[in-house]
Structures are given as structure tokens and as C-alpha cells.
């Protein structure tokens, strides 16, 4: 199994973003970082040659971020 250099860089960025989401204390930061996660995933799909899936990922990433931020206002933002 071969991995391109671009893919390797994108996957490493994804791992870093995931770690920051897990260990972050602020839920708002986690939600916005999750938006970045779907952004990087979009590039990964383009590199893999699936622009249809990348398009869907871009649109759905934005909408889910909006919903997460709206729902965050009903709970405590800080993680205990």
C-alpha cells in the first residue's frame, strides 16, 4: 500500500486536529476545530480523486458546524 506525500501530510494534520478536539477544555473551540477537520477531509477526498464526495463534505461540514454552535448555547460551554 502506497501513500502519497500529500496524503501523509493531510492525515498527520487530521491526527493533530483530532487530538486537540479530544483534549481541549472549551467546547466552542472543539466545534470550530471540527469544522477544520471536515475542511482537511475535503482536501483528502480531492487528492483521492472523489470530487463528488468532497463537495458533499464541504457543504455538510458547514451546516453541521452551524447546528453544533446553536446547540452549544443550551449547555455549558466549558468542560469540567
Amino acid at each position, binding site marked *: 500500500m502506497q501513500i502519497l506525500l500529500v496524503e501523509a501530510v493531510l492525515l498527520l494534520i487530521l*491526527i493533530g486536529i483530532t487530538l486537540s478536539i479530544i483534549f481541549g477544555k472549551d467546547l466552542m473551540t472543539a466545534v470550530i476545530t471540527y469544522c477544520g477537520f471536515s475542511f482537511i477531509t475535503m482536501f483528502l477526498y480531492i487528492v483521492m*480523486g472523489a470530487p*463528488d464526495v468532497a*463537495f458533499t463534505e464541504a457543504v455538510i461540514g458547514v*451546516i453541521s458546524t452551524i447546528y453544533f454552535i446553536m446547540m452549544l448555547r*443550551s449547555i455549558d460551554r466549558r468542560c469540567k
Partner: protein
Amino acid sequence: MKKKLTVLAIALILTLPFTFLDILPSIGDVNSAPNKHVSAYYIENAISECNSPNMVTAVIVDYRAFDTLLETTVMFLAGAVVLLVLARKPSIKNRIVIPKSKRMHKDKSGNPIYKTVNKDVMITVIQPLILVYAVYVLFHGEVSLGGGFQAGALIAMAYILDVLVIPDKKSVFVLPKKNSVALAGLGPFIYTLTGIICLIGGGMFLEYAKLPFPVHTAELHSIGILAVEVGVTIGVAATIITILNAIMERVTFDDDNY
């Protein structure tokens, strides 16, 4: 303790794919199993059988149309389940999405002034662009990338922008909760209706070549794919708007005034 378990799980998941590195085929490998059997048939016959230049659309809504029908139904179910889960209804009038700290600044006519979003730019420039692009993606999805799902999500995004940017205005186009659920059900209905019309023409369910219209076979495929994608668009857009309505009407925000 929980953090140690998390680190352990991440380490396990990260080491797993590198352990079985040789089993997985590389991307675009000619000798891997899916590329030998299914892909070869699609690549050879998709354009001549479905008359759709975009092979992804041909596979999704022509070869596997029944699959996509059930996916659209799952979208509708997701919207209905969100309404069920958020069944508790707080008694709040005039819900505003802007936080209380930004709500204090008001202009002469009483409309709140927002520091973050320029609503003139949003309404006059960005929203029509999104809608035009959505229609383009829907009707051009057969040829280029895109299709029903993306068009529906874009239409829903324009509606969300409308609700978020100008909360108090009398909107030109408002979709109440009951109507949005009904509209979400209309999407799978249009999809199924296309299949039943194919049955009337003497073919199998969703066999577009047997549609009872007096045009050429290639045009019949185009009509079938377009009808199906219109159904998917309506279903997806109305489902996302249903979830937005459920959140706006039934969730207690922490800075609400009762």
C-alpha cells in the same frame, strides 16, 4: 483514568492499520477485487446504457437507484426522529439567535446591529449566489459533479442564513415546522412515483428506459435521473430545515428570557 483510556484507544487504532498494511490494496490498483469485476463493467457500459456523462451519477441514481431511495427515506426518518427527541417545548416568544451581549445595540427602527455579519452583503450578494449555484448543481449534476443531495443542502444553507442573519423580519419565505416535515416526506414520494411510472410503462421498478413518454431512450434516462434528483433535493432541503425548526422552537438556550 479516562484520559489514559483515550490515549490507549487512539494508540491501538493508529497501530492497527499499520499492522495490516499489506492486506489493503493501494488506491487505483488494477488487480484489486472491486476494480476487476464491478468497476470494469461500469466503465465500459455506463455511458452507453445510462447516457449520463458523469459516471458517479449513473451509478448512484441509475444502477443503484433503489439504494438511493432508501437513503432518502433515512434522511426523512432522521428529521422526524429529531422532532421526537426534542419534544419538550419551552414557552419562548421571539427567539433570537444573536447572543444577548450583541443584542443591546439597536438602530433607530429597533433592529439589532450586529458586529460580525454585514447583513446587506449576506442577503443581496451571497444568498442569491448560493441559490443560483444550487439550481445549477441540480440541473447540471448529470453532466458534472454534484447532484440532488448537494443541491438540497445548498438550498437549506440559504434558508439557514436567512434565519440566522435577520431573525425578526417578516420573511418572504417561511417554512413552518409541520409543512417542513410534510415537504421532507414529499421527496421520497416523488422518487417512488418515478419508479411507479416506470412500472406503468411496462418496465421494472426505476427502469428509466421504460418511462411512458414519446421520446428517445437517452432522453428518457435524462428525465428519470432529473425527476429522481428533484425528489432527493426536496427531501434533503426540507429535512435540514426541519432540524433547524426543531432546534429553534424546542431547545432552551441559556440566555433566554421567559
